[in-house]
């Protein structure tokens, strides 16, 4: 068969060399250099946040719109604060209380917001492909803050940042990702990101929550919780209550899930670190004492979320790989 290619959505990816308009729709928009650049910018930003005055002037006069069709605490608050710390104007729109309640389509909402000439639209949406659609109908840079079960690239970047801060390296790192991979956009972005930086991922969880064919992403798959022992990092995924609904039960009970796949102190080695994207179900996928232990980097992840999202916004609008890119100055 001859190659069939069409590009109905003219989307330019963040990894592209010198495009007019870059996006972060998924980890596949990045190459290893782009990841290194973003993490480096985040490190620079982190140092600036130790100062008394935390605001940087880098994005003064720019407009960042946060368009959220799903509930969010961490992601929305950190994107909002990230834009403000870079001196950008911000605006948040949630689906409830907006024209979405009146049945407005995503395309029409995007076209409306486009009239304000935003520099960046950060979008979270329950449907896969929503960021691509917004990218195709506006002139803004689009950042995917989570689309369905597809991608959540800034989460993966902040996770890489957290791992590197804690362990000093990413190359060769072994990360066990535990739990409901099937429904997890966090897992998909993280697997791709880990592969990109030369780390190794092992997925551990019940067979019914492992997507058929996931090993083709370059990870190992196990149903035995004992296999987390070999990992440097144990990354725990949220077990969602709705996966237990009658008729759609992926596991017989949360009780059995916690007993067989819950991450407990007994199942961890002393030197292992534990991460979780939040929000946690304590006592289900993660034991409360583990979440609060010294091994847990969960609060570091939240802090990393702010600096990494600042780095992403800065990179899209002022940094990037091009000749006219300006390295961030915090002095």
């Amino acid at each position: 068969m001859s190659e069939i290619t069409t590009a109905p959505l003219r989307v330019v990816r963040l990894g592209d060399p010198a495009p007019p308009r870059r996006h972060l729709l998924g980890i596949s928009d990045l190459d290893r250099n782009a990841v290194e650049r973003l993490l480096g910018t985040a490190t620079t930003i982190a140092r600036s946040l130790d100062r008394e005055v935390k605001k940087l002037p880098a994005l003064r006069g720019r407009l960042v719109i946060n368009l959220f069709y799903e509930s969010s605490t961490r992601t929305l608050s950190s994107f909002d604060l990230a834009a403000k710390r870079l001196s950008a104007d911000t605006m948040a729109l949630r689906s409830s209380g907006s024209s979405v309640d009146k049945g407005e389509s995503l395309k029409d909402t995007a076209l409306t917001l486009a009239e304000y000439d935003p520099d960046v639209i950060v979008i979270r949406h329950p449907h896969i492909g929503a960021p691509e659609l917004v990218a195709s109908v506006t002139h803004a840079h689009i950042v995917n803050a989570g689309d369905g079960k597809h991608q959540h690239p800034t989460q993966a970047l902040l996770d890489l940042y957290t791992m590197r801060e804690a362990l000093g390296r990413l190359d060769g790192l072994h990360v066990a990702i535990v739990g409901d991979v099937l429904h997890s956009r966090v897992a998909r972005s993280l697997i791709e990101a880990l592969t990109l930086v030369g780390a190794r991922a092992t997925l551990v969880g019940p067979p019914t929550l492992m997507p058929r064919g996931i090993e083709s992403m370059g990870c190992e798959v196990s149903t035995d919780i004992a296999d987390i022992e070999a990992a440097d990092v144990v990354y725990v995924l949220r077990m969602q209550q709705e996966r237990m609904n009658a008729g759609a039960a992926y596991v017989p009970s949360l009780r059995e899930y916690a007993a067989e796949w819950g991450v407990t102190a007994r199942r961890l080695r002393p030197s292992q670190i534990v991460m979780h994207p939040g929000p946690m179900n304590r006592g289900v996928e993660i034991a409360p004492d583990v979440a609060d232990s010294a091994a847990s980097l969960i609060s570091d992840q939240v802090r990393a979320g702010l600096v990494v999202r600042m780095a992403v916004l800065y990179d899209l609008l002022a940094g990037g790989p091009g000749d006219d890119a300006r390295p961030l100055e915090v002095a």
Partner: protein
Amino acid sequence: MTLFWPDRPADSLTLRGARVIDVAAGVDGAFDVTVEDGVITSLERAGEPAPGLVLAPAFVDPHVHLRVPGREDEETVATGTAAAAAGGYCAILAMPNTDPVVDSAAVLGALIEQAHEGAAIPTGFMASISKGLRGEELTEMVELARLGAAGFTDDGHPVVSAGLMQRALQYSGAAGRLLALHEEDPSLSRDGQMNEGAVSAALGLAGWPSIAESVMIERDCSIAAYVQRPLHIMHLSARESVAAVRAAQARGVAVTAEVSPHHLCLTDDTVRTLDTNRKMNPPLRAEGDRQALLEGLRDGTITCIATDHAPHARHEKETPFEAAPFGVTGLETSFAAINTFLVETGELALELVLERMSSGPARTFDLPMPRIAVGERANLVLIDLDASWLVTEHGFRSRSTNSWLLGQTLNGAIVKTVADGRVVHAA
């Protein structure tokens, strides 16, 4: 009588210089074909055929969504049949999953009237197997068949109950019509958005596993064998399905099958674009499945290429992939797509494609057989294999533009279509 269109005088014409291919009639050579008052009156041997010009029996599409009644904004009898004429078709069968459903003599009668008034080519209508497509009670099949139903299908939905399937197959004998089945076990396909496999795992789209199709085919072939009735399987997509049909045929079940151009040309890898015009039901499958479909078409397990032409309003497809409806258009691009992506690459022989798009479906659905022979009604398609054309939103006769081929250049254009003795398309 199951095909309807306006009663008008037939045409007379002569088609010169083409390579005439009618596999079923054993014709392959350069002929001048003369049609008088709609009937082929002479085939005269000619010299060297004009390069690229092929004259073949016109196409028959047993699987078209005309969207009437209910969604006239997406397609009508006039626009859908004009699209079919432009695609080289001399007959189509329309699906009954409309609003209201074609499950009563009143709805079917109104459609037949519309075809009598404004169909561009002879058009037949399938009626539903179950009332309201609910899978609970049978429609009045005998009355519907007498009125002109071409067959019965709940297309878009499976007949979930094995008991109702048994009754439907038995009762279709009294109606004397074929049942055509959309095979999908909903407890397996669930809320599936695309084929379950490596691509769905990577994208996070809910998987619609291949076995959701094949287990239902196996079930229904068993029931058909038990009640000794024929059945037709629509839009095969999976390797397991081809194997199930082949095995049933080998043990004597009268089962036929069709495949769509998009399932022959594409794999689920193309869904990575998140283009909503790559979202179909059944979904695009893996390369192994595509190969199995091609082999099934070659060895005769699959007798029909059917477009499953499924028009959708633009705003309904301009959504995130997950929110978009299933289906793509196909009537105006079917031959050119297959010619470009499968014939020119050597995966399928031209002669085989022409047969599976014409006499294959006509025989399967007991429709008038397009033949190129003296004394036959003229049902002809003239094709220029050397003509290239760009697929754009502006070029369609169909009222909808949800084609998976937008922006692509195809080789092979339909120059002229003659349906039941009348010229219905001339480029």
